[in-house]
């Protein structure tokens, strides 16, 4: 035991004396959560739009006012002819143009049918989609006001309610994802680098010749990162609660336990990577490409798994992060308990045991 404590003390010296690891450990989680929380967002705010109004009557004026009054849009400029639309998009600032047909008011009254064209700059498809949805919503609202006094005999009125995230804040989606990335990065990449570093320096050999057991070496190397990862998870949860006002609906204890499980999964992966790579560089590349990319792309963090092609959906099942994201989204946003996430937890547990088993086996082979 005394040997073990000495070993852990040494690990902490390594971590605290290396600025690079300190930055990855503590700078990155905070920077990432801030970036994802503030800068990267799916919501639209004050998008610049232009108006091409061929009729310039009372109705079009009213609609334009409604649109510019909303917080989503600001009218950047008025244009006079169709050919200006392309020029204006090429400049890049304006993201959408509203094109009112000639005699808008008159058509509306006479034919009960007036046309408006929404042209959006779809170089960014998500934003274009959101803009067109928002403009539609404003128009529907306006139409309702017009028909206030008329009763239509048959009418289907959908009432949409967005549960768990009524304001559709992107940060609710990013916090679980960022937490997953950070825990994966810190646990897997940092441990694999720290173990391969001993190999590279030749100190691993010295440790193996000493009476300290290989298992003690590995646990000793991994232990500080379990501790630091837990601190990181706590920091991320606190940031999301106090800065982004994201509620944690479920049990904090359960969240903690699930996080510890995922940390151990990631550490097991880190050990596995260290057994197959001889240098720190290799370990880092494998961690980044082999772990980070799948976590970002295939875990359902940013891109919904259900809209992926079938082969990718199948691959996503073997990515531990996918299951962890389901678990923490459940706990944080829906407030679910173990009865709803036992299956995911079990899968994660199984993966962890598998990775630990595999790395123990690899480690033994390497010793030969």
């Amino acid at each position, binding site marked *: 035991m*005394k040997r073990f404590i000495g070993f852990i003390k040494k690990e902490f010296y390594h971590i605290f*004396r290396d600025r690079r690891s300190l930055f990855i450990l503590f700078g990155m989680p905070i920077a990432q959560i801030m970036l994802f929380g503030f800068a990267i967002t799916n919501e639209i705010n004050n998008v610049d739009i232009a108006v091409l109004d061929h009729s310039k009557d009372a109705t079009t004026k009213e609609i334009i006012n409604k649109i510019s009054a909303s917080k989503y849009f600001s009218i950047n400029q008025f244009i006079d002819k169709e050919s200006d639309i392309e020029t204006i998009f090429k400049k890049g600032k304006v993201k959408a143009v509203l094109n009112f047909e000639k005699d808008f008011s008159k058509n509306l009254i006479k034919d009960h049918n007036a046309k408006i064209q929404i042209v959006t700059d779809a170089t960014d498809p998500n934003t274009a989609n959101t803009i067109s949805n928002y403009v539609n919503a404003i128009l529907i609202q306006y139409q309702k006001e017009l028909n206030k006094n008329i009763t239509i005999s048959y009418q289907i009125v959908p009432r949409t309610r967005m549960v768990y995230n009524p304001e559709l804040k992107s940060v609710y989606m990013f916090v679980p994802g960022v937490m997953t990335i950070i825990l994966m990065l810190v646990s897997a990449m940092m441990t694999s680098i720290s173990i391969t570093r001993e190999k590279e*320096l030749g100190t691993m050999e010295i440790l*193996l*010749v*000493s*009476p300290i057991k290989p298992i003690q070496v590995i646990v000793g190397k991994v232990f500080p990162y379990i501790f630091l990862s837990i601190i990181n998870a706590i920091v991320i949860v606190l940031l999301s609660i106090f800065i982004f006002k994201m509620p944690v609906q479920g049990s904090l204890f359960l969240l903690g336990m699930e996080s510890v499980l995922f940390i151990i999964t990631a550490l097991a992966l880190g050990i596995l990577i260290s057994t197959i790579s001889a240098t720190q560089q290799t370990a880092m590349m494998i961690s980044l490409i082999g772990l980070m990319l799948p976590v970002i792309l295939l875990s359902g963090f940013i891109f919904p798994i259900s809209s992926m092609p079938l082969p990718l959906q199948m691959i996503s099942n073997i990515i531990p992060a996918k299951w962890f994201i389901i678990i923490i989204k459940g706990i944080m946003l829906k407030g679910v308990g173990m009865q709803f996430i036992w299956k995911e937890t079990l899968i994660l547990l199984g993966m962890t045991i598998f990775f630990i088993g595999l790395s123990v086996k690899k480690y033994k082979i390497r*010793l*030969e």
Partner: protein
Amino acid sequence: MKNNKVIQVEGLTKIFGDFAAVNAITFEVNKGEIFGFLGANGAGKTTAMKMLIGISTPTSGKANVAGFDVHKHAEDIKKNIGYMSQKFALYDDLTVKENITFFGGIYGLSRKRIKEKSAVLIEELGLEKVANKLVGALPLGWKQKLSFSVALLHEPKIVFLDEPTGGVDPITRRQFWEMIYKAASEGTTVFVTTHYMDEAEYCDRVSIMVNGKIEALDTPKRLKEKFKVDHMNDVFLKLARG
């Protein structure tokens, strides 16, 4: 026969695939002896040494190190030997004192013992001024001496040195050999691999490995007589060229 022989090897073999890296070597090392283990790169000396220090399992053959069998009691061997690799592996981001404390700790020395030992060691090496400096800042020669002292910290019966003088200047090499002599005079057996033939002359006995086999084993003096040459270098060349 036992007590005086700290290493007894008989027919020790290591086979990788169909290549015999170490091919049935047999030798003995006496207590307090400086035993030179020579051979060209790839001759199998590192593989042989790895089997003796318990980090590689022999394919066949017998070996007894510090009174323990390599097959059955590798863990006991580890407690009784010291090892210094060609990389002088210490932790660069730990201070001299922290390195000593750490390595003392993993060999199970008590805190008090570590304190006493490190005070003596730092004084002997003249490292008082840099005791609290990071090892990374020390010149190579100092690292090498410190590394050797650390390998001796737990007073092992045998110390294994894997090409301990690679890359250091002749004066430091000379000083290093004085440390080896001192350790040997205090009863520690020194098992050293090297490819500097002038260093071979400093050993009590040397063995020369060629292609996984020990081709010669005797005192440097007798080897030179046998091959009728003036320098160990020529002995080596004659053997290596077959």
